[in-house]
């Protein structure tokens, strides 16, 4: 049940993603690229959980994972905001 449930969630999310993203106009494709990239930084959740792993190797993996994911999240959202700030209507 669990596995199928989780697969269902995945499939539905793909549908949602497809429908929502096709509505983004070409004007905003560059911000979309960097914005959706920032969202992929959600792996930061996994990275935080990974620091729980015991042992030196685990610790280091966790630290690097947190650094990587944080770069992705912070940089991604900030640069997207910087771009979107520039879009103005007369």
């Amino acid at each position, binding site marked *: 049940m669990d596995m199928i449930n*989780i697969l269902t969630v995945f499939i539905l999310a793909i549908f949602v993603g497809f429908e929502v993203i096709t509505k983004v*106009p070409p004007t905003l494709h560059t911000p979309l690229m960097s914005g*959706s990239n920032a969202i*992929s930084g959600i*792996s930061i959740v996994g990275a935080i959980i990974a620091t729980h792993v015991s042992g030196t190797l685990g610790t280091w993996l966790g630290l690097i994972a947190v650094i990587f994911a944080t*770069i992705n999240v912070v940089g991604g959202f900030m640069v997207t905001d910087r771009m979107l700030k520039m879009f103005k209507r*007369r």
Partner: protein
Amino acid sequence: MEYINLFYVTAAVLFIFGLKRLSHPRTARSGNLIAAIGMLIAIVATLVGYAHLDFRLIIIGFIVGGLIGAIFAVKVEMTAMPQMVAIFNGFGGGASALVGMAEFYTKAAPAALQAHPSYYDLTTIVLSVFVGTLTFTGSFVAFGKLQGFITGKPVVFAGQKTLNAILALLLVGFAVGTVLVPANMMWYFLAVIILSAILGVTLVIPIGGADMPVVISLLNAYSGIAAAAAGFVLLNNGLIISGALVGASGLILTNIMCKGMNRSLTNVIFGAVGLEQEGAAGAQKQMNIKSYSTEEAAMILDAAEKVIFVPGYGLAVAQAQHAVREVADYLEGKGKTVMYAIHPVAGRMPGHMNVLLAEANVPYNQLKDLDEVNPEFEDCDVAVVLGANDVVNPAARHDKSSPIYGMPILNVDKARTVLINKRTMNPGFAGIPNELFGYDNSIMVFGDAKQTLQQLLKDLKEL
């Protein structure tokens, strides 16, 4: 601890709403903010909801990562956006891979190995590590190519495809081994990591620098898939949904770029475009071209009533976005109708021209897309082509032998006069000659886009 999933789902729903708001420039900025809030919720929920976290590590990670990310985000030039996305992307994929590795370490480390981890666990872990690592190294090669650290030319050699095929086969073998052969699990897993890293390099290195945006967009999709795979490992709905959203976004953008370039994805990845360019350029037919000075161009513009500017990659290279806005504003002040024609794959990134012109404060309602603007050329006095080439090549309409035949283009040649600014007669990205330059109504104005436009503005004012 079950309730924590509610927060992840909330975060995912906020991502969806954020992406929905990206469908209009007016709401887009708030959409990005909403998505960022979703991320914050997911992070806080994790920090609060999970026991035994190493807060020392986490805080160091946040500070180091946050600083690096913020500095990148503030410093980057708008023209360097593709590189920027590539590098962020690489870090995202890397993080997913590391999460998978850490899970492997917990579940399969000799110490923990009382029970053999389940096939489900191993399969999803291997998947997330493979996709994540490949995204990591691939993205850095793409970054290096665009930044000029690595040659932008396709790096090809005999037997390259065979080598890649062998690497891929080995990878599959070790992946299956990790899941099925507990005895050698550790070594097989290590081999998977190393092979994925190598494959990320060898798959991207033969692709030309100009094709990098497509590759980056594809790697963007992969980083989403890696995050989703990590979600399957951790049974975390938030990761799965977000990963799926990013995957869909990356694939859609990849597809749009391929369509705009009139090539298949296979051709982009395995085609090694950029090699036969010299040959094609050499076969150029004799053309009679007219070359005018900016002063003469100014007089033509002065007499026009309706002017359409057509920016291309050259405008971005020359950083001439402010210069073109000034010329356009000046002409508009003189009572002329002015608009910008934006081709979907002008530049080197989807929506490249929009961001560039937005930076120069051009209001987005003056930017017209292909379908909207093409009928406008018919009664347009002057079309001003600025560093664009392939996207205005009429061969796409009629020359069946042209590699870009069938690609939708901006019909600038329908305008009464076409002013074309570029530095030389060299071809553009596709490496093919452009017959437009020899048309009767075409006039070349050679020079760097920024300098030319600045001179043009002076000349206009002196008329």
